[in-house]
């Protein structure tokens, strides 16, 4: 088995998948801690549906190579709408549900009414579950994830005290004179960027899992915010590497294999956390 693994590790596409996978998992797990604690667990799911809707729109408009020019702005705007607009009559989670279902419906409708390729359902399936796309990454896409993970890490390090304050108690932060709107804006833009990139590379099923699972797993065990962040990163990178290698060796779909590894990690942490208390 080790021989088989070593053989696969010689292929550049495997190395690229591993690199991008680790970097995206790392970025998403950092953001995930913040998003889960702010009750936006479903934002990964919601935004990726919005990105899917935007993608269909760009196909219909005949913009395929520069589709990011449409997808990214729409998703960023939606993220700002969700994270910044405090609507009294629509709560955050309901807002996510509303936008994501609407976007999914628009996207699927557009793909059906103006079919671009013969096999609509396969197109839909690919964008939702990532299927094998993770193993077909270009080096440009790998570079994009390098840049993004540097941005996320930089943000987490340099804005750490502010991000903690806003996440723990936004009203208090505002009262003490912090510019909470600015922090929320930065978070919204970075969140949207990570999710759009991740959706393209690994599919929207996996991006939700990347945001939620490592954060929740770490929260079962760790007792300080910093430790939760660090452990969340560690678990997500471990889970992604393990999931990827298993899927290559066993020939299972990449996305769902990684999600199941995450689930296993979460259950383990949950049990450990129970005995910890």
């Amino acid at each position, binding site marked *: 088995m080790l021989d088989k693994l070593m053989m696969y590790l010689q292929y550049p596409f495997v190395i690229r998948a591993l690199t991008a996978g680790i970097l995206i998992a790392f970025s998403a797990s950092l953001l995930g801690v913040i998003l889960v*604690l702010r009750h936006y667990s479903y934002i990964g799911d919601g935004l990726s549906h919005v990105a899917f809707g935007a993608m269909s729109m760009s196909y219909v408009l005949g913009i395929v190579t520069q589709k990011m020019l449409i997808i990214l702005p729409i998703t960023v705007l939606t993220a700002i709408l969700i994270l910044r607009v405090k609507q009294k009559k629509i709560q955050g989670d309901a807002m996510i549900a509303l936008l994501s279902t609407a976007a999914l419906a628009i996207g699927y409708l557009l793909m059906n009414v103006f079919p671009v390729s013969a096999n609509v359902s396969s197109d839909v399936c690919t964008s939702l579950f990532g299927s094998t796309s993770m193993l077909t990454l270009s080096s440009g896409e790998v570079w994009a994830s390098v840049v993004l993970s540097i941005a996320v890490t930089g943000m987490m390090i*340099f*804005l*750490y*005290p*502010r991000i*903690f*304050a806003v996440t*723990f*108690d936004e*009203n*208090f*932060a*505002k*009262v*003490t*004179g*912090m510019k909470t709107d600015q922090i929320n804006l930065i978070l919204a833009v970075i969140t949207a960027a990570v999710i759009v990139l991740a959706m393209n590379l690994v599919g929207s099923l996996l991006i939700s899992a990347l945001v939620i699972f490592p954060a929740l797993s770490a*929260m079962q065990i*760790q*007792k*300080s*915010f*910093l430790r*939760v962040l660090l452990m969340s990163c560690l678990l997500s990178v471990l889970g992604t590497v393990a999931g990827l290698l298993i899927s290559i060796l066993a020939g299972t779909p990449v996305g769902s294999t990684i999600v199941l590894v995450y689930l296993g990690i979460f259950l383990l942490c949950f049990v450990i956390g129970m005995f910890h*208390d």
Partner: protein
Amino acid sequence: MSSIEIKNLIVGYDHQQTAAVGSFIISKGDYVCIVGENGSGKTTFMKTILGLLKPVSGTVQFNGIRPKEIGWLSQQTAVQKNFPASVREVVLSGFAGKLAYRFFYTKQEKQQAENNMKLTGCIAYQDRCFRELSGGQAQRALLARALGAADGYLLMDEPMAGLDPQAQSTFYQCIEELHKKGMTILMITHDHRSLAYADQVISFAQEVKIMAAHEYLMRVKNVG
């Protein structure tokens, strides 16, 4: 001497009046309790002072103090109980508003946070997780956080709610100690015991009245 000057103030949500507060001055070093029925506008008034709500009409003017130098202890329900953070991290976040153009807290601020934890008696459990604390412990941690932001003024919204009698008296002592050191206290309360410490009472009923604490206690007794 600094003060918070309230002029012809009417507070409320979305231009809907909740209470006509009127005019008065809270001077540095005062100990003021705010009493009244639920829904009479006490919290709305406090949030207006803090700048979280806009006044329906009238003004809140700060003399010799910047609005962000006020420490605030909100109602307990407003803070996430299940948050995975150590007491130390929570207390330190009280200084977040003072970061200005810095990225990190200074050594001085960390030292100050430690002093605040000593003062409120939460230094003993500074490494424990916020979600594991009892109501009284959590409240003292949040008080220590408020002190990080407070520069002479401390606003509290029912800080005693949900605390057992033992925790309440510890908390009162703590606040009294702060007051003796010159901290201005403005506290919403349902507990008549706190009035024993207060100089003045703002009573929210049909009308909003401000009076000396002993005068208020006399009135309450006469009615009872």
